[in-house]
């Protein structure tokens, strides 16, 4: 190796690492600043890192019954949403993954078509209305309960499991449901966890559908309340009058952002651990 080349390679290496650090800072700076604003005491100007720290904004927020109720609503919606979505997805993906099931291709096509073509928002809204699901949690739990993408990823995963195990169980007289429950699902833990987390994240983050389908303010989940706090809309409902406030308005807003983000950060390491590029890329094919 020539010396010039080695020097060039070293310069290249430094450039690459400097670039990665720059990207890291660009991603983290906004998040750090949000936390900093949420901790800045009343009457002080904000900066990237706080000069003094006060948890008043968090105390103030956690004292608001409306916010606690919204948190409860979100937890309930996320848990029941994941349960419904997983049951529907597994029970659809497994039969369609059996190569000898008559009509498998046709049914997969019927499902795939809904992935490629949609008539938009209004026709679905009319369905929810005609089923009398408006202003019920069923609307939020059901309108997008199955993601075709997740369904196809799971179907592909089931298809790639070794056939012999299931055949052996079948010969022993196990029913389809028994094979699914006792053999296929235990082998599919990583994919079940990944897809379950994807459903959970979608439900936890959803803010448009609650606004669309619900009218009762008491039923709204956390992101809707967060948006109202951020825009100052109906915020009197969530935060008591400014006279009693011990934290700056911006601090309250950013504390609400942080509180909504924390549960996401708690599950993120698990998403991370089970997320492998192989499980999800190429899932649409086949």
């Amino acid at each position, binding site marked *: 190796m020539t010396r010039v*080349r080695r020097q060039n*390679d070293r310069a*290249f*290496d430094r450039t*690459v*690492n400097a670039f*990665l*650090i720059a*990207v*890291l800072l*660009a*991603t*983290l*700076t*906004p998040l750090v*600043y*949000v936390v900093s604003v949420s901790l800045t005491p009343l009457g002080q100007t904000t900066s990237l890192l706080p000069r003094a720290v006060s948890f008043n904004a968090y105390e103030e927020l956690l004292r608001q019954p409306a916010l606690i109720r919204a948190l409860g609503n979100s937890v309930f919606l996320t848990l029941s949403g994941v349960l419904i979505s997983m049951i*529907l997805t597994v*029970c*659809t993906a497994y*039969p369609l993954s*059996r190569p000898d*099931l*008559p009509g498998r291709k046709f049914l997969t096509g019927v499902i795939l078509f*809904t992935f*490629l*073509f*949609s*008539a*938009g*928002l*209004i*026709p*679905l809204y*009319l*369905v929810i209305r005609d*089923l009398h699901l408006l202003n019920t949690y069923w609307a939020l739990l*059901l309108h997008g309960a*199955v993601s075709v993408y997740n369904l196809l990823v799971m179907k592909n995963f089931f298809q790639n499991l070794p056939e012999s195990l299931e055949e052996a169980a079948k010969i022993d007289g196990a029913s*389809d*449901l028994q094979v699914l429950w006792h053999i296929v699902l235990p082998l599919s833990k990583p994919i079940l966890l990944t897809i379950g987390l994807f459903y959970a*994240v979608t439900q936890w983050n959803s*803010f*448009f559908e609650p606004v*669309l389908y619900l009218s009762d303010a008491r039923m709204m989940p956390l992101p*809707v309340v*967060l*948006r109202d706090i*951020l825009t100052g809309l109906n915020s009197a409902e969530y935060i008591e009058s400014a006279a009693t406030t011990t934290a700056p308005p*911006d601090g309250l*807003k*950013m504390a*609400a*952002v942080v509180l909504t*983000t924390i549960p996401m950060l708690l599950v*993120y390491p698990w998403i991370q651990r089970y997320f492998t*590029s192989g499980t999800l*890329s190429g899932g*649409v*094919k086949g």
Partner: protein
Amino acid sequence: MTNVIRSAPPAARRSPRQRLLARLWRHRGLYLMLLPGLLWFALFRYWPLWNAQIAFKDFQPVQGVLHSPWVGLEHFQAFFSSFYFSQLMTNTLVISFAKLLIGLPPAIILALAIHESSRRGLARVTQTVTYLPHFLSWVIVFGILLAMLSPGSGLLNKGLVAAGGDPVSFLTDPGAFRAVVIFSDIWKETGWSAILFLAALIGISPSLYEAAEVDGATRWQRIRHISLPGMLDVIVLVTLLRLGHILDAGFYQIYVLYSLPVYSVADVIDTWVYRQGIQNFQFSLATAVGLFKGLIGLLMIVIANRVARRFAGQGLY
């Protein structure tokens, strides 16, 4: 018919129909399992397609979907000839294409940098941190943008003022709003998009790099002649997939970020459909526009799939 009845076949040689019935019966457990899912698709995906007929009707809630009077293509004509048609299409396409053209290169570069870095720890941390924002709700990103961009206390505006400039109300300034949409999308999604490219890079055989090193190739040359060609298929596939969704400019994002002062540059097909349909009760007109968007989307994705099969050797679906 008589023939079939006369010679009732032995169990082993049944007619094709009987064999099919026997196969269906044997799989009855699986069909039973499919039932809830298929019912869901019927109710929440195919019933809406049936309801889409109101695009050709003058939908009256009292009369319902079926009994509202037909009006042919009236709503489509009203949409195509209205002044907002060109504005909606322009906004949708400009935002979509900008996200694709400005957003894709950073993802490719990030994947290359993560792949090339000699510091594996740094590379891993960068990867983990950059795809975290993908999992944040757009409402949370809205809060982050307020912190960064608000004219009074926003970090970016503080920087602008410190540099001697004037503060900009990015979120309500029509001249700045699209940039906010595009760059917040880049901040949120670049790490996530990089994953696919990184997977392609990991799939490249190490022997190619070793051979290049023996031949005296520099790191740049290795990227140009091995890494980039190795990612090309994935780049083509991702681009085509994005083109298939070119009329989805990012509804959730724009819905939460936009406001009246920036409608002229921010209003896209989906946000307009929502306002006309749900807020102004123009169900038929909004459905017609939604249907138009759905049909263009279907057309684009079918074409993209054809192109992908030809150039990348594999289809999108």
